[in-house]
């Protein structure tokens, strides 16, 4: 595994994890009144 390979893996995993956690925090968190 090259350094750029690790870099790609880290970026993609971080992005996917962040997006999923953010979305699910909105879904499971307290509901705001829709705009």
């Amino acid at each position, binding site marked *: *595994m090259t350094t750029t*390979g690790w870099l*790609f*893996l880290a970026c*993609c995993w971080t992005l*996917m994890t962040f997006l999923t956690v953010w*979305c*699910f925090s909105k879904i499971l968190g307290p509901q705001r009144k829709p*705009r």
Partner: protein
Amino acid sequence: MSERTPSREHWGTRIGLVLAMAGNAIGLGNFLRFPVQATQNGGGAFMIPYFCALLCLGIPLMWCEWAMGRLGGSKGHGTTPGIFTILWKHPLAKYIGLMGIVFPLGVVFYYNYVEAWTLAYAVFSATGKYFGITDVAGMKGFLSTFQGAGAPLGVSMLGYFFFLITFSLNVWILSGGIAKGIERLATIGMPILFLFAILLVVRVFTLGTPDPAVPENSVVNGLGFIWNPDFSQLANSKVWLAAAGQIFFTLSVGFGAIQCYASYLREKDDVVVTGLSTASANEFVEVILGGSLAIPIAFAFFGRTETLAIAQGGSFNLGFAAMPIIFQKLAFGKLLGTMWFFLLFIAGITSSVALMQPLITFLKDELGCTHKKALTATAGLCFVMAHVVILGLHHGTLDEIDFWCGTFGVALFALAETLIFVWVFGPDNAWAEIEKGAQVPAPRIFYYVMKYVTPLYLLVLFVAWTWQQGPAVLTMRGVAPADQAWRWGARLAMLGVFLGLCWLVSRSTRLKRLTEAKP
């Protein structure tokens, strides 16, 4: 049009809806197709066109389909014939919308059978039925025998038995309806899928180097096989097409199933965050979990050359021939094998129920059938048509239906729905529909992406796929003469289904159910 169905069913909970939608999207492709595609198309560099396609194609289409579905549901239309009639007051609209019922049906005709193989292999893993077969060629032979090669009518009794179980399970789940059937399956099945996938990834990552005598065959190098970027591949248009295709299939856009599920939303429910959650859950499973299982473990046990050959042999080769060999070499191999195939089974069944639901909803909404009647008719049709695939598996009927419904069809339908929703209904109306009830506003840039980039992307995909595969499929290039009759049979059967549904649409029009919609 008046609100014809005030008692229309709704999703029970928001998380249930997200899990059901994610279940629709997460399929065998997340665990088998994605790693193979990444390996064959530039490794880490594949992720650049992959994320471009996610932003320009996947997410906008996802939002469009969710918004269309919610709009249709609010007016009593849960499938695209009715939804398109709302968006475009033209007699043709409902017939174009039929694609959103015919293509998911076509896919489910073979998907249930493939799903049955995963259930069967989960049982075979638990009982150790294939243990003792230690090479890929042997496992291919085992799969082939299970699929009925050499058996009378080309069907093995065991394979057919598992098909009956799988099909019955699908029907049983659908008999519960949206909240008590599909949503309940998702709330139980999806956490199991996540748990099994995470446990398997942990096992793969703790493998290290299985054979110390060959230190280069390690899990880390297996990850490198997927992630090390080959930037020269970015100049290859086929890589960009493959990435767009992967996004298209993995998110299950262009099937008509998302609109159908979204039609059971309430009128002011959010679609922006909920739709994005579905996409992100799917991507999490695909990129992080799917990319860390089959290829890295295959690399650690087989090495670079053989893994490349396995990957080039296709996704089924990887899942059904290579993985069972690996499980035999691991401690608790029976347990791990059972988890792997049961995980694939859950991924499959949450998708197959979504593919059958549009016809059920159509029969209920547009023809006034009861749930029981609609389910019986849908199940009956799917059961009969599945036999075109089961009996003709060794003659290429699965590939034939897969091309027309799963490749050509979905690209054509996605292009049609984008043009109708964005350009005919109007970009401002479409955007307002997406934004309605949004918990978080969608970034404005997606308005322009949806208006210009997504249709163009889809047009390129549709033309490229038709150009690449169409002539060969149409003229049956390389197909043995004995198999050509089978393939023609599959085509005629699909045409018959389409014409039958056209008749139902015209009957619905006569019943004034598809003509009263107003924009």
